[in-house]
């Protein structure tokens, strides 16, 4: 078990809190840089895994966006595929007009963020299930706009997407695209980590846990709800811009309700309220279809070829997580870590949730 000797408050503020962080995260980044070369080395035909990893990283970015809104601020959005779509179509449209990727990427995120801010205005006073329904409605509106505004979006015909270009160089190779995704993911992780270690991040968590007392601590509730919506939409928009290049052809079915549910499932299964959760969730969502296609050959034909096998499995897994591990994969990870770090003293009760005391009823 590691005991960290603290001599300065900076140690609690730093992202790398002790040498263990430095070691493991450096290792992780090296592994991520080496991965596409190792997979592409020719000895194995695992090149397709590079594509999978890119997709997982894009999902992770989108998941971080949703995490800001749902995990940290406690506002459940069931329409986040709309922001993914706004990012993707904005990026696609601008690149069609000859704008370079670097510009269109940022415009895509910014536009998505602004629309998120605008959505925050009517939904400001909504909480819980009413907010979720409002976000579903928003997603439906965006979907029909995509279908009907065909001069921009291509409507039902869809929209082909070119490879992203950086300073005139086009990234056609999946490995190059992989590194683009990696850089974006790292930047977004840093952005969210910074947010959560400063006043604004704490204000969002405060909003989630008690609006009344957040307000009496001087937190301007409408402003911070708008910040949460705007940031969340912006990050998801960035993910959308990358996603457009990943799927290379945009059609409205890629951004339907199921996609929104998939995003929400990702943050819930990964673990609400942590950056790790978004990443774990993305890995889970990205690898489940891969896993399914691998085991499909060994399943009886009746099950393997059943329609809706994947969504069904998603549903079962979500239920199991909510029942047995509400803290998600990240929660389980923490438990396993603690088990080994204090071995053999771990007790099951360590993480048991205690009784929640009665909250002030007079104010609601």
């Amino acid at each position, binding site marked *: 078990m590691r005991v960290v000797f603290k001599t300065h408050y*900076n140690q609690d*503020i730093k992202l790398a809190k002790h040498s263990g962080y430095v070691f493991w995260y450096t290792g992780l980044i090296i592994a991520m840089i080496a991965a596409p070369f190792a997979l592409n080395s020719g000895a194995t035909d695992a090149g397709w895994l590079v594509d999978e990893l890119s997709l997982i990283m894009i999902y992770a970015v989108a998941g971080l966006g949703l995490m800001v809104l749902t995990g940290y601020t406690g506002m459940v959005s069931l329409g986040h595929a709309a922001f993914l779509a706004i990012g993707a179509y904005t990026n696609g449209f601008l690149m069609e007009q000859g704008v370079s990727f670097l510009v269109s990427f940022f415009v895509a995120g910014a536009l998505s963020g602004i629309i998120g801010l605008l959505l925050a205005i009517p939904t400001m006073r909504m909480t819980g299930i009413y907010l979720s329904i409002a976000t579903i409605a928003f997603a439906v509106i965006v979907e029909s706009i995509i279908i009907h505004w065909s001069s921009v979006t291509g409507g039902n015909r869809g929209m082909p997407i070119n490879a992203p270009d950086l300073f005139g160089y086009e990234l056609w190779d999946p490995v190059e695209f992989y590194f683009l995704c990696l850089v974006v993911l790292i930047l977004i992780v840093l952005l969210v980590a910074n947010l959560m270690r400063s006043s604004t991040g704490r204000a969002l968590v405060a909003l*989630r846990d008690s609006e009344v007392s957040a*307000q009496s*601590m*001087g937190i301007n509730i409408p402003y911070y709800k708008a910040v949460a919506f705007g940031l969340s939409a912006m990050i998801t928009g960035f993910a959308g811009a990358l996603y457009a290049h990943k799927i290379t052809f945009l059609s409205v079915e890629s951004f339907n309700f199921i996609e929104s549910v998939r995003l929400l499932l990702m943050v819930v299964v990964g673990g609400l309220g942590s950056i790790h959760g978004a990443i774990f969730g993305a890995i889970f969502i990205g690898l489940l279809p891969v896993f399914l296609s691998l085991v499909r050959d060994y399943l009886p034909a009746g099950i393997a070829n059943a329609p809706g096998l994947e969504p069904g499995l998603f549903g079962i897994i979500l239920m199991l997580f909510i029942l047995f591990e509400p803290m998600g994969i990240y929660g389980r990870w923490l438990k396993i870590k603690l088990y080994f770090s204090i071995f053999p003293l771990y007790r099951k009760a360590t993480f048991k949730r205690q009784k929640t005391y009665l909250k*002030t009823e007079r104010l609601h």
Partner: protein
Amino acid sequence: MAFFAVDNLAIHFGGIKAVDGVSFQVNEGEVFTIIGPNGAGKSTIFNMISRIYDPSEGAIVFEGRELTEVPAHKVAGMGIARTFQNIELFERATVLQNLLVGRHAHRKTSLLAELLFLPSVRQQELRHREAAEKVIDFLDLQPYRNQMITNLPYGVRKNVELARALCIEPKILLLDEPASGLTVEETRDMGFWIDDIRRDFGITVIMVEHNMGLVNQVSDRVLAINNGRFLAEGTAAEVQAHPDVQKAYLGA
């Protein structure tokens, strides 16, 4: 002009007059206690001062400013902090994070600076932390610093809520039943702390409390109300001896 004055304050919920024309003044540096039977309107007065409710009539004046014209989230910045009767902490955060939220009114950085975590943000974080640590030392919360609120017992939560309010560095502290649910010993500690808060930090305390032991221990002046109306005002002993107060508590 009075430091803090409530003048003819009233709030009606439909036909119910929860508070009906209450006036009082609080001097700087004193402990002012409001007592009254359940439903007398004590917490409602607090909720109007912290701007959760809009009064139907009357005025609340603090340092010459009319409080009813200030939006709720600006009250903390003016130097008015409060605790809640049933504890309103941020449960899925640590004690330290809760205290740092209390520093929110002192935030000076912009959102963009925070996203990039510029040096100014780091400096501010360090200042917030130092201020929070002073409060932790004052209320003996060191063992709980990094614990989740959900894992803390009730008495400690009460202290954390007091600590969070102190992190605002208020001029006026509103305590809504600070002793409810505490053991005898914890109640006595709370009394000592309230004394220290007034004496060492110079913070004016306005308190709602049922525990007469605590009221006697710390209050300079006591106001008794019932059914939203004024009953009596004076020292703790005077108010408790007042025939109207005894009638309100014990019946005619």
